[in-house]
């Protein structure tokens, strides 16, 4: 059974269509990226999945039930964008309360609060009130509350926006660590980050789901992104075009080529070897050899 099923899902606000006939089936598994320009409807989509708002038309089900169905309560967790914890009460008190609502006993709830705060590196701030935290710390507390218990589905709306690089990395590690048991849907503008974490990409544009990509799907051809630093690109292209297994070469910019090639199971690194030999022969310098195509290029090239 699919984890999430949307049929003709639409949402209008004051006559403006924010989501337009979304049809999608998602199963449990590796993290799913939700991308799209500002105003594309990402937060609205996540809000409908969380049960905060209801669709104007169409249907949505999680585990075969509506998001707000009692069977789903406690199984779906979310990092809501812009939601603030109660400013008057300590973080520990609020997270312990959330854990209790999810079924933990009073003692277990305290342990669970310690665990999730430890995960996001906020053990020392446990007794502080949300108003005394920086934006990044408040975001990490919100992430911590989303990790209470073992939800089947965690929706993270821009989880690393406003976080410093160390804590952003920590969040990525948490997602990676928990993704064996929990399905994450992550909305972000950081495509490199999503590429590291996710297996599938949903691309929303003006409320429509225009792309649904699988980043690790097995295909007959593969791509190699080659960025050179000191090289005669026309000569390089000419040399590569001679190779019978090269299907297509696209020049992304002055220094970067995207090379589509047929896979050879006997010699999986044949293209890489050839590129290095060419560098050696012509005394060229390469900057990066990336196995695959950047998400940014997949979506926008």
């Amino acid at each position, binding site marked *: 059974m699919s984890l999430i099923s949307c049929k003709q899902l639409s949402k209008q606000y004051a006559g403006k269509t924010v989501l337009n006939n979304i049809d999608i089936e998602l199963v449990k598994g590796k993290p799913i990226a939700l991308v799209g320009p500002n105003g594309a409807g990402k937060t609205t989509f996540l809000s409908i999945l969380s049960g905060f708002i209801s669709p104007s038309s169409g249907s949505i089900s999680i585990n075969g039930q509506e998001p707000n169905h009692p069977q789903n309560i406690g199984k779906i967790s979310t990092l*809501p964008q812009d939601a603030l914890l109660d400013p008057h009460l300590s973080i520990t008190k*609020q997270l312990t*309360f959330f854990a209790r609502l999810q079924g933990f006993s009073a003692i277990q709830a305290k342990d669970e609060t310690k665990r999730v705060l430890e995960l996001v590196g906020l053990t020392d701030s446990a007794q502080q009130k949300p108003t005394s935290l920086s934006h990044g710390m408040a975001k990490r507390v919100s992430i911590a509350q989303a990790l209470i218990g073992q939800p089947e589905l965690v929706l993270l709306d821009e989880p690393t926006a406003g976080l410093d690089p160390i804590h952003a990395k920590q969040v990525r590690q948490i997602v990676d660590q928990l993704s064996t048991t929990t399905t994450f849907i992550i909305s972000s503008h950081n495509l490199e980050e999503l590429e590291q974490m996710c297996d599938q990409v949903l691309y929303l544009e003006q409320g429509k789901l225009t792309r649904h990509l699988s980043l690790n799907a097995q295909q007959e051809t593969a791509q190699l992104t080659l960025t050179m630093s000191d090289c005669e690109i026309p000569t390089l292209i000419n040399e590569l075009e001679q190779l019978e297994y090269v299907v297509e070469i696209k020049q992304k910019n002055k220094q970067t080529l995207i090379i589509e090639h047929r896979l050879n199971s006997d010699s999986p690194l044949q293209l890489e070897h050839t590129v290095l030999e060419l560098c050696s022969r012509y005394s060229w310098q390469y900057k990066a050899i990336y196995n695959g195509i950047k998400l940014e290029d997949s979506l926008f090239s």
Partner: protein
Amino acid sequence: MKRLVLNTLTPHSSPHKLWILIQFELSKFFSTSKGLWSIILFVVLWGLSLSYLINDAATTVYDPSFRAFISGLLGGHRVGGWFAWPLAQLAVCWLIVLYLFPMLVIFTSNDMFTTDKHNKTLRFLLIRASREQIFFSRILSHLIIIFIFALVAVVSCLVVTIINQPDQWLTALTNSGYILTNVIIISAPFTALMALVSLAANSAKQAGIIAMLLLTLANLLVIMLTNYIPSLAVLSYVIPGVQLSDMIAQHGAATFSLSAIPIIQTLVLLALGNYWLKRSQL
């Protein structure tokens, strides 16, 4: 740290979850500045009432000039019933609580949902509890707060009454019970009204102002309409507190004779508030 797995735990039953929500709301109320201000306001108002009105009630109530003043204020037809209260202290207590507690409810419950809705704090709860559980837990916790205030008021009044008339302790105790129960009944529609208003308002202050305006305008509207079509006087039954002036004349068990009005009003307002929250985009 060992990770606790949710599916190894037994999810709380609905009443248990409701109780967890109520406990949290109560601890939030009494640990925040709003709660503390409510306590201070209540203690000051009730302390003054107890010292200057209730404690001296035995001499005041039978004073002819006071009787004349009250007759003018409440209307002669009601005064007779009020003077029939068996104990003067409780008669004064009855008069005060009838009007103090609805105002107290408006003050203490004006932020039942407003700030949490505005800050989207409710979203953290919505993934863990149903909208009905959230709605009714807040109603119940605010009624418990009012019960605590009412208990303090009635018990202090009972003590003063027994000190002044120790031989009447049983009568005082019975009538105190009537007052306490009535306070909860008359406060209930105001609590339900504040839940509804605080869902619609953008701030706690605005919720308080809207509630006061609604009550005032509704009363004025009914008076105006009744002038043209007297049968429309029936509309006044939708206004919380409509029965209060008639309740002054009641005493003893008869104080419950008008309880159906606030109970029905509460049920209607609760249904409206619950429907509103269910339909709200949070």
